[in-house]
């Protein structure tokens, strides 16, 4: 029965469930940012991309539900989220490569622009309910409804996980991956090889934004599954910090995203079993984690192992 209480087992279950549910946007944004930063540019604007992605996915899913049915419409929404992300990526990629333009400053402008345009266009979608992405219920064997509910896995999560080895292989073993790394590590050498720095960076930023857009779709079409103006609450920015923590390695991006996703569930889970003091502290875990990461990994004295050589440098 649904009324069975789980007691203390609720905490690990909530963390696992939170990890599966909440890590998807982190995963996509961090993979996208990983690709972008490998090419030597930072895209802080992914927070805005995440919001625009969430809005476009929700809006398209809602508007097309009549025509395409509730099964297909969310998937078109996911695609549109990616395309909307690419649009923002194009602007960022073009602007940040102009002379005397700082990519961090452009990124901050893009956060404001992306969020603004999402809020503006998203007004009519706050109220209606859009069809959601179907989930894979892998725990229906369990007699506990709590366990069944925890293991409703989004296909987007699986897609994100599948993307990790692909991206890793892309960087290590493909010619295009080599181009991206060359442009990011040593633009001069890449230029000597005859690679267009501008084109490679533009492509990396656009594809990175595409992935971040998909992350937004996970927010609005899977979990928590709605469009509001404060849907992302800083997750895009956290994911950018997470890439540094992950040392620009796709596999480590995956572990870091899972960690951050799980950390979000900590505060509510502890309160629900009666540990109710210090909830502000528990609720702040993701932010504290980000800070700790920044403190331990950033130092003006040395460059980080694994950091793309041209990252954050004027060319």
């Amino acid at each position, binding site marked *: 029965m649904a009324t069975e209480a789980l007691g203390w087992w609720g905490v690990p279950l909530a963390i696992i469930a939170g990890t599966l549910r909440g890590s998807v946007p982190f995963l996509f944004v961090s993979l996208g940012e990983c690709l972008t930063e490998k090419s030597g540019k930072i895209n802080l604007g992914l927070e805005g991309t995440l919001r625009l992605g969430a809005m476009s996915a929700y809006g398209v899913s809602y508007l097309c539900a009549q025509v395409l049915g509730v099964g297909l419409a969310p998937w078109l929404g996911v695609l549109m989220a990616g395309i909307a992300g690419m649009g923002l990526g194009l602007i960022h990629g073009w602007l940040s490569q102009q002379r005397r333009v700082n990519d961090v400053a452009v990124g901050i402008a893009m956060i404001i622009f992306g969020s603004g345009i999402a809020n503006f266009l998203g007004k009519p979608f706050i109220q209606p309910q859009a069809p959601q992405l179907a989930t894979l219920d892998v725990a229906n064997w369990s007699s506990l*409804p709590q366990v069944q*509910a925890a293991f409703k896995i989004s296909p987007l999560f699986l897609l994100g996980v599948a993307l990790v080895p692909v991206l890793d292989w892309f960087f290590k073993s493909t010619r295009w991956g080599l181009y991206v790394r060359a442009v990011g590590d040593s633009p001069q050498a890449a230029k000597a090889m005859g690679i267009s720095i501008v084109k490679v960076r533009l492509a990396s930023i656009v594809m990175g934004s595409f992935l971040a857009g998909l992350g937004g779709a996970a927010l609005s079409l899977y979990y928590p599954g709605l469009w509001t103006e404060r849907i992302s609450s800083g*997750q895009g920015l956290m994911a950018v910090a997470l890439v540094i923590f992950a040392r620009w390695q796709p596999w480590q991006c995956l572990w870091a995203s899972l960690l951050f996703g799980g950390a979000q569930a900590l505060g509510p889970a502890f309160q*629900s079993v009666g540990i109710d003091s210090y909830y502000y502290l528990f609720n702040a875990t993701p932010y504290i984690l980000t800070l700790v990461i920044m403190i331990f990994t950033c130092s003006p004295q040395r460059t980080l192992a694994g950091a793309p050589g041209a990252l954050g440098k004027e060319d």
Partner: protein
Amino acid sequence: MPDRNMSFPLSRRQVVRGLLATSAFGLTAKFGTGCSQPTPTGTGDNKAGGKDYVVGFIYVGPKDDFGYNQAHAEGAAAMAKNVPGLKLVEEASVPETTAVAETMRNMIQQDGAKALFPTSFGYFDPYILEMAKEFPDVQFFHAGGLYQDGVHPKNISSYFGYIDEAQYVAGVVAGHTSKSGKLGFVAAKPIPQLLRNVNSFTLGARSVNPKITTQVIFTGDWSVPVKEAEATNSMVDQGVDVITCHVDSPKVVMETAEKRGIFCSGYHANQSSLAPKGYLTGAEWDWSSIYTSLGKQLIAGKSIAKGDIPHILRGGLADNFCKLSPFGPAVSAAAKADAEKALAGIKSGQLTIYKGPLKTNTGKLILPAGKDLKITDIELEKMDYLIEGVKGSVK
């Protein structure tokens, strides 16, 4: 080293041309709005000397968020509809920063607003206070009950409703419906108004079944969708089967509860369309009657500063400051009967929500037996405790 001209690839002539074009565009754009503005006042010359009385509403979030802002926006729309000669100007998603001061200034100076309703709690100090000092002829109405006589400017009125009365009745329904005897409350921050809601909801439920407990989870902020969903999910995992909330937009909580197949009770506005199966009832604001009556008084030329409109306006279910959502399909006949009884009792003043003996959940005695606190008691506005039966802590 490239030469200086290369680093700034525009000639002086191009810059001058650009500047000219921009200012020309700006002028025409400004001119356009300047022209279009007098038209509505020119055509709409009904009462009040041929000019509409302009009232400005400012919201902290979108106007259709199924929550706090929607409740106010619906009230504002009713005011504009029911009061002839009154013109409404609105701005949504204005943050509680200097942005709201600018919005107020624009509404006063450009739209000619004579009365302003900046609705969010955090607008009051210092933004409304500053603007009220600067524009003593404009009337300011603020939802929250923060006005202090002698301290704050004379042209401010603050209004607020005792929505915990409605929460009590919703608690009665929840108490009847819950099978596990565990209710859940997703809360933002432990401020007195929110704690009143948690406690009234619990008292209502315990009036039906004294063994019922309410689990409260604080998310830490007014709008954090992911945390609200996590809070709902983890309470369902612990066997909670009726959930309500006090956050800016209850949409996430209601939808998550419906997905998990439990019951929910709304807040701020009617959310029954979000949870057609599990929605029991809800504590809603009912600003339309208050706003309409204020609008009529404003049109009639009454003012706060002169004392025609009181500085503090408060009321509960009986005064139409709040109401209950229509009962959902899952509400039993017995629950309906008890809820109607509680509603009538509160409206007539015979039912007191906070009556002794009343203890906090840490065992401290708040009210001895035989003593009670009326809903209007100022003591309740300092609430910093959770009563017996609530699981949670305000620290």
